[in-house]
């Protein structure tokens, strides 16, 4: 077991504030994107109700693989980011972001962000590994990047030890590794290796996780065979940047559900012989939250659009780097506050296991750490936009 750093970190290369405003991002949703949203929402409404998600968290199979099959294979969503020539749908981060908004809204226990975005982006950065990529894009298999979920783009990450053609080491905090068929493991020789999860020498054990719907796992490699698909540094950086950028759309979905559900409840819930939602102290809190959700939507669309604008260079493109860092420096607090406000304003029922608000709180809090905290992204911005520390 050793620790390596990625080859280098992205530095500001012209996205500074003095540069002219580049092409305006498209912050709206196209008709096609709205149609995609409607289709995903329909499926989730039918197959991912809150009671079902809660009971699944108490089972031995925290991931809903039949729902995953319907989304990833049935609707072809696993391959959105993969070009058609490489076995995917040839769509962009804009569409994937819309899918993630809906998955966040339903707090769906499926490995979309981890497999169809993060693992997929890592492979897209690699020269080799086309077969693995195609198998993820077609949803025949699920992939997971074996980098701890809390890692920010450009930050240090642990690597396995490569020796005599096999891998050794223990990697913890790997999101959705439980559900993965193939693990993408960075090694201390600078390579990224595809490792079959069921191979001899590979043990994946679930960790008891704060977020019940995106569980973490410990991966132990004890002479595990791996196939080198490319260089770990650029692949991991690109994967984490895309993950961080699109996570903002998931966080938007979480926040939207929390706000909408709380507004609905407060119109209905009566105390002191009037709807609780009529009290000004509560109205103002909900209006503030709505403003933050409006802002988050703009930041999330901006990140998705920036990633879509130059997918091949997404990891190193400074515009995208700024857009992602801005979105992640903002999104965490909004999603967490929305879930916390939802819990508080639901009163006692919000504190129960039976009510789904805790699923959103746990996901939102975990998301605020995933792919780098807001603080880590603010620090990245200090370099990107030239607001240097003392």
């Amino acid at each position, binding site marked *: 077991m050793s620790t390596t750093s990625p080859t280098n970190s992205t530095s500001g290369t012209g996205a500074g504030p003095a540069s002219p405003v580049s092409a305006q991002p498209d912050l709206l949703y196209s008709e096609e994107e709205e149609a995609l949203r409607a289709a995903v929402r329909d499926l989730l409404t039918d197959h991912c109700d809150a009671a079902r998600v809660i009971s699944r968290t108490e089972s031995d199979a925290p991931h809903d693989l039949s729902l995953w099959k319907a989304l990833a294979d049935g609707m072809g969503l696993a391959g959105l980011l993969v070009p058609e020539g490489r076995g995917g749908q040839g769509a962009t981060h804009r569409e994937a972001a819309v899918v993630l908004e809906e998955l966040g809204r339903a707090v769906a226990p499926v490995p979309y962000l981890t497999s169809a975005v993060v693992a997929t982006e890592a492979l897209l950065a690699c020269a080799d590994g086309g077969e693995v990529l195609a198998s993820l894009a077609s949803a025949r298999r699920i992939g997971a990047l074996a980098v701890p979920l809390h890692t920010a783009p450009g930050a240090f990450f642990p690597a396995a030890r490569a020796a005599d053609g096999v891998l050794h080491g223990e990697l913890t905090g790997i999101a959705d590794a439980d559900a993965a068929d193939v693990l993408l493991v960075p090694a201390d020789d600078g390579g990224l290796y595809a490792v079959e999860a069921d191979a001899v020498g590979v043990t994946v054990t679930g960790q008891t996780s704060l977020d019940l719907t995106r569980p973490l796992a410990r991966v132990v490699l004890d002479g595990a065979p791996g196939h080198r698909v490319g260089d770990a540094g650029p692949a991991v950086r690109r994967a984490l940047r895309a993950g961080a950028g699109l996570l903002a759309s998931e966080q938007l979905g979480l926040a939207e559900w929390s706000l909408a559900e709380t507004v609905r409840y407060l119109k209905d819930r009566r105390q002191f012989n009037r709807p609780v939602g009529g009290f000004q102290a509560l109205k103002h809190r909900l209006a503030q939250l709505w403003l933050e959700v*409006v*802002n988050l939507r703009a930041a999330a*669309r901006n990140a998705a659009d920036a990633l879509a604008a130059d997918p091949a260079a997404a990891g190193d493109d400074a515009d995208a780097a700024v857009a992602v860092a*801005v979105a992640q*420096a903002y999104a965490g607090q909004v999603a967490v506050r929305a879930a916390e406000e939802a819990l508080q304003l639901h009163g006692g029922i919000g504190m129960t296991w039976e009510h789904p608000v805790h699923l959103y709180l746990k996901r939102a809090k975990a998301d605020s750490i995933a792919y780098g905290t807001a603080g880590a992204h603010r620090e990245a*911005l200090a370099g990107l936009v030239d607001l*240097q520390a003392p």
Partner: protein
Amino acid sequence: MTDAAELRRRTQELLAAHPPATTARLDLLRARFDAGLAWVHYPEGLGGLGAPRSLQAVVDAGLEAAGAPDNDPRRIGIGLGMAAPTILQYGTEEQRRRFLRPLWTGEEVWCQLFSEPGAGSDLAALGTRAVRVDGDGWVVDGQKVWTSSAHAARWAILIARTDPDVPKHRGITYFVCDMTDPGVEVRPLRQITGEAEFNEVFLTGVRIPDSHRLGEVGDGWRVAQTTLNNERVAIGGMRLPREGGMIGPVARTWRERPELRTHDLHQRLLGLWVEAEVARLAGERLRQQLVAGQPGPEGAGMKLGFARLNQQISGLEVELLGAEGLLYDDWTMRRPELVDFTGREAGYRYLRSKGNSIEGGTSEVLLNIVAERVLGLPAEPRTDKDVAWKDLAR
């Protein structure tokens, strides 16, 4: 439908007939109005061509490229943004023809006589009285406040109480008031920055002919909604580059003055920089929605966010400056012609931005509006709805 190509052609035609280099500014503005290129979405004959509003940019770009002067919209913002749309919607044909052209060219400046000392957030409680005389005119008595441009204005849009015996929203009528009437007295209202952007306006026996009434008698509250809704559109439609707002001067100071930096300020600056950038993106998204013809409720909240950010950012700026933050550029009582929130120095920005959460609707009232109109939460219990205005406590 007039399209972009047609507007380009008409713009070139205007420029050929009135070359900016040899045409007096006012003549060119009048000719532009008469060519329907002033505000293309207005009707023909009233400065427009009935074209989509989004095509105005085509005309503006063509005229700017040719070096043509504009109508200095910041100086006549109240006329353009509030009076004009209201006159267009509620004015008689005669009123539209009389008022809109000199309003647009800036020959006649407009101000707004709405707020009163006793009617701020509760604007509909206003007490300025308009009493009908001689069958064909009105006499107005009362006091208005927070009136920008009153000292420069030729005309005012005015709401006054014409029937105190009905509930407050129903007894209001909307007028155009002649600011040169001898009964109009304008006094500067000095504010915490030291200067006087605004005025108090005292109305004593002011005569208004009935032909200067906008809308029906008693329908003034509804007419005023047009004015106020357009105010919000005007506030929401701005386009900013990154660091284009209040964050710009602080970020520049941070870069140029490393000796002022501390870790605590760095964390707070980065946090506010992110919020300013996100608010800018939200404004840009709103603008894109409007251009795409998909207006959403998002505009209702833009001002709330900008008010809070302006205050926090300018507060940080004063603190960043340290010893210099203890100084102020100038307390001299002045009457600026333009309102510029980012003008002058940090101390001014800090003090002036305190008004951002009060002017154009307090943040508290705007939060109620968002909660009730956007989120659909129950309205505040009303005790004044069915009470005649004259019987309200005040």
